[in-house]
């Protein structure tokens, strides 16, 4: 399964990329994706196609996943 991952703001420096495809051999959850891109320990909001998902939510082929810090609107 392959998903497109975009990492927002300073998290991109921690992850080492701002956008790329990530492949898993089988199914994967949002939490497993966070661990894969090395930012599981940071407070984040993860969205799929504009809607928030929890770490336990399963990802699906072709999803666009956005991982962002918890912004607060300045």
């Amino acid at each position, binding site marked *: 399964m392959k998903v497109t991952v975009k990492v927002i*703001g300073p998290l991109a420096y921690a992850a080492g990329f701002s956008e790329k495809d990530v492949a898993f051999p089988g199914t994967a959850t949002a939490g497993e994706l966070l661990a894969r891109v090395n930012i599981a320990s940071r407070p984040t909001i993860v969205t799929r196609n*504009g*809607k928030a998902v929890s770490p336990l939510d399963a990802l699906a082929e072709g999803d666009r996943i956005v991982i962002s810090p918890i912004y607060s609107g300045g």
Partner: protein
Amino acid sequence: MYGWTGRILRVDLTTRTHRAEPFSEEFAKTWVGGRGFAVKILFDELKPGIDPLGPENKLIVALGPISGIPAPTTGKAVVAAKSPLTGFYGDGNLGTRVTEQLRKAGYDALIVEGRAERPTLLYIEDDTVEFLPADEVWGQGTFATNDWIYAKYGKGVGVLNIGQGGENGVRYATIRSMEGRSGGRPGMGAVMGSKLLKAIVVKGTRPIPQANAAGMKAVGTADLKMVHQIDKDTGWSRQSTNGVLAWCNEVAGLPVQNFRKTSHTEAWKIDGQRLDEARVATYGCPTCTMRCGIAIHDKEGHESELDYENIGLLGANLNIFELDQVGSLNYLCDDYGLDTMSAGCTLSFYADAIAHGATTGDFTFGDAERAKELLGLAARREGPVGNLLADGTLRMARAFGHGAEQYAMQVKGLEVAAYNCKFIPGMALAFGVAAIGAHHREAWIITFELKNTTRDSYGPEKAAKVIELQRIRGGMFESIVSCRFPWIELGWSLDNYPKYFNLVTGLDWTLDDMWRLADRVYAMIKLHYLREFPNVTRQDDYPPAVWFDPENADTEGPIAHMHLEADKYDQLLQHYYDQRGYDRRGIPTRKLLETLGLSREADEAARYATLT
């Protein structure tokens, strides 16, 4: 009394007189400072119905008990007056050395009254107040004016100044300081200009009275280092506030084309990463160790200091996706002394009105060069177009007619900040009930809405979150006075702020005391509104009508075919009123006012309008 100097400096430009007025400990504890001082002083001293640009209006510069004390982000000052943009109480804050210098001169606030006979520089040094000619820089931009002041007094003084926008009564002219700092979105710069006051320069030499100066110094110094370290560890200031642009673009919350669209394929060209890459310098406010001002070279080669709001509204919202051109528009706003947010919305509205046939003109979305010319026309109030633009979005819409008010992106006359709430109901509420008009400063709940609730909910939890944030952001931070960024962006504990407050005042306040202060301040701003607009209705707390329009809904993306629903928004608004203790017009009830200790103020408001 510790923490406060106990004095307010009152200056009359008409009579060229001044006096230091003591205030009581009760006044200090009831209103604390900053916004709290300003709402009370202006309520007591201004008659409703006065011309905001007449000599009867008063300009307030107000500080708080932790202002100027070395601790995280205590370098802010509140500027306030009756707003020429919205017609009632307006304010803003900005980082400035005036904060520390005015406190060291022995004052917690400055009240400027009357109107000078000629362009004036007000110079304050401890007990000395001088009214000096400023003809030499009248007509000059804020950068040249600042240079002129620094050449005369050195860079260590506190400076507030205005550009051509303030001189010419542009209704969203700001007050500027330290070359990159602006404050007073609802036209505080125009109020200053109407008094022919080009600049205020302050120098102070006295210690600020503190109950536990040694303790405060130890805590403040350590905390400044810790905030710096947290910022470094998280990397927040690499992109500063503009980190949020890419996220808004992904979740359909970015203002594009006068808020008609919520994302754009070229948004990456102006996002936080591109801003960081283009950085040529970094700036910040006094006593700040998480400096957020990222400067780039603009199209003409000037240094231009950018953040998300001005990139969102002078860039994406005008369909301009060249960062250097956005920098140019921002530089011009800073030099003219115009609010970048209202200027961006005003230009986008003008382009939209032309596109929809409400008026004629030669401005289209994406035309950065024409946008630069239009900013100049507005700042100089040159010609019919310049005069229209100088009056802001709502007045333009009313002048155009043809239903243009539907897509005038404002609430209570103040233009909307750079978050597109086509389908973000709680944030739309935050704009609707923001005390001074559609400002993001007081409550921003978009990540809360998406992460902790469902996006299509209009439930009471969203109203509760707006109130919680208003108490913190619009109440406590604006009154003590401090920047909210260490808390909101780095997770710096809120408990630190009563701690600082108690160290300098010797009091024993908790956060609950801060929330009570905040509720009092919010109630007072509502009384200002009621006194000016006695026929107030709940419709005044509605966001722009276009967000409710099905025909304006996105046709693709995460919120395709979604839009705000009026009946549900009204229920959400009622949740807010119920939780606040406000009546169905959104006005505090007499019972609430009495609970907040505002019986006298309630009686005064009741002379002009009905209280329930």
